[in-house]
């Protein structure tokens, strides 16, 4: 059975028009998401992953603007959708959770108030009904004694509980798509696992598609079936999770994999950082953005932008190494088959 497309992004380009010039944060990004699917967008800070999500939400703040491309959601082209219509999609059909639960909740309103707000806005429920629903959903995300907690203020919640409340808020209208922007980065490791587990369970329960944005490959392995690796405003590599982990084709992906701390690594094996820093998107390089940091840079890498090479079905990589004339390389990232579920 062919699954249904929920989101399709074609050649998206987003820029920030700052006083020093145009910062080209996203330079042509295409991807899709099927109904019920979870994908991960991975990359270091400045790679454009968060800007991608804000572009899909159409929540870019001045001076940011989508300058090209097409976003189709549920069969509708939302690229140029008027703000009013977009508002009825946000929080209703597409919801979002943010990185820092400490600052993402309004400190002067109760948790319940902030959850009910979305419910009442999109479902037109009465105050009492909305409150009941808020309590129900708080229970669903695992907040103990939700009928009391609903009247608490954010500062009375712990970090993990706040992120649960954020998830409750995002899921309150049972959205088709949930974008989670680094949902676990600000949390303790043990809480991280709980939150990821919760997201996985809820995905099954309400059949929501998920875009999980993170800089941590370890986080996506568990939740997502496909991974996009972003760098310098471009998608460097895209493939099924297992493909990305066991058979990475792009040296940047390999670098990311080598830098994940793992228990199964021998004591004398060190983590390998990727040297250098991401390109300045004010003057983006005309060729491969990773060439300055790549251990396999060839002359062509500094001259021409590589096209996407299909390594396997549904596994593409924007790297010259996949060209038939390129020297073949052998890489061991240290990730053993079967080490991810």
């Amino acid at each position: 059975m062919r699954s249904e497309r929920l989101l399709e992004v074609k050649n998206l380009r987003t820029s920030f028009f700052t006083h020093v010039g145009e910062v080209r944060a996203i330079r042509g990004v295409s991807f899709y998401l099927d109904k019920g699917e979870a994908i991960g967008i991975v990359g270091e800070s400045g790679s454009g992953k968060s800007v991608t999500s804000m572009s899909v939400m159409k929540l870019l703040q001045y001076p940011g603007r989508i300058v090209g491309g097409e976003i189709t959601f549920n069969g509708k082209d939302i690229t140029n959708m008027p703000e009013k219509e977009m508002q009825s999609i946000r929080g209703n059909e597409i919801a979002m959770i943010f990185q820092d639960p400490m600052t993402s909740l309004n400190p002067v309103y109760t948790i319940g108030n902030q959850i009910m707000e979305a419910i009442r806005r999109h479902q037109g429920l009465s105050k009492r009904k909305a409150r009941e629903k808020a309590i129900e959903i708080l229970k669903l995300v695992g907040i103990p004694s939700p009928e009391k907690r609903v009247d608490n203020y954010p500062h009375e919640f712990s970090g993990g509980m706040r992120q649960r409340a954020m998830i409750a808020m995002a899921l309150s209208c049972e959205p088709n798509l949930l974008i989670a922007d680094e949902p676990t980065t600000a949390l303790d490791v043990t809480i991280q696992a709980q939150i990821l587990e919760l997201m996985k369970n809820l995905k099954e329960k309400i059949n929501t598609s998920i875009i999980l944005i993170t800089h941590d490959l370890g986080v996506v392995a568990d939740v997502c079936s496909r991974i996009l690796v972003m760098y310098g405003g471009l998608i460097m590599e895209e493939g099924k999770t297992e493909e990305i982990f066991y058979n990475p084709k792009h040296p940047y992906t390999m670098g990311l994999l080598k830098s994940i701390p793992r228990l199964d690594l021998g004591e004398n094996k060190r983590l390998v950082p990727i040297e250098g820093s991401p390109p300045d998107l004010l003057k983006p390089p005309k060729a491969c953005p990773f060439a300055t940091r790549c251990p396999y840079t060839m002359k062509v890498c500094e001259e021409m932008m590589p096209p996407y090479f299909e390594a396997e079905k549904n596994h593409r990589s924007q790297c010259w190494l996949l060209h038939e004339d390129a020297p073949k390389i052998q890489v061991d990232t240290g990730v053993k088959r079967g080490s991810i579920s």
Partner: protein
Amino acid sequence: MGRFIVNRVFSMGITLLLVITITFALMHAIPGGPFTREKALPPAVMKALEAKFNLDQPLWRQYVDYLGGVIKGDLGPSFQRTGVTVNKLIEEGFPISAKIGGLSVLLVLILGVPIGIISALKQNKWQDQLAMFLATLGVTIPSFVLGTLIIYIFSAKLGWLPSYGLKSWKHYIGPVIALGGFSLSFVARLTRSSMLEVLQQDYIRTARAKGLSEFVVVGKHALKNALIPVVTYVGPLVAAILTGSFVVEKIFAIPGMGKHFVESVGNRDYTVLMGITIFYAIFLVVMVLLVDITYGLIDPRIKMDE
């Protein structure tokens, strides 16, 4: 909440006791008594005067008597004006000052806050630039300059406004603007910068991501947070208006408390000076308490129980 208020009232009492003590001590530390004139009074007259005002008593006795009087609400007689008590001066002057001061506070809040909000929402557009140009000008002009300017332009040159007294509503325009001008500009600037900061916060992004309209995002989520620093400023605002009234009442010849105060500075009427200072202190301390309670109501992070 109840305990919070009890605690605050208690520390208010200590503050006031200290203020009374310090004021009393300062007034009695003035070299020469209140009746020291260029021409010395005859010793007998001097003695009679001192007896009349209890000045022949030991200092501690005078202090205890005075404190007792203040607690009972009696601020004593005027030294310089025979038959006039400080209470009577306050009864006469305060309603007038309160009316002008209250109108000024209203003007400041009703105009200043919206101007600040509009400026923040229209950041760097012409509305913002115009408002901030005027506000910057406003915080550079002292009330006595603004007051005299109003008299010179609108009374002397244009003849639109009366220059002194308080007979009609027109008489209030000049003093209220002169008194509130500085604070109005200050509040507009404060609201703007506070609003701009709040609009950058993550929870505003969350509110937008929920699909709320821009009106709700600004009016509900941003406004309440942006008002927190403005509410904190209301205490100092009342104090600024109060001290501003000293010059404004002088310029517009308004018989309010400020005028009495400045006059008693001029003729060294110590009991009036002391009495009005203490009255102001009580007034301000109560205002600060009210502001603190409002503050606690707006910002749930303030723990009212402590």
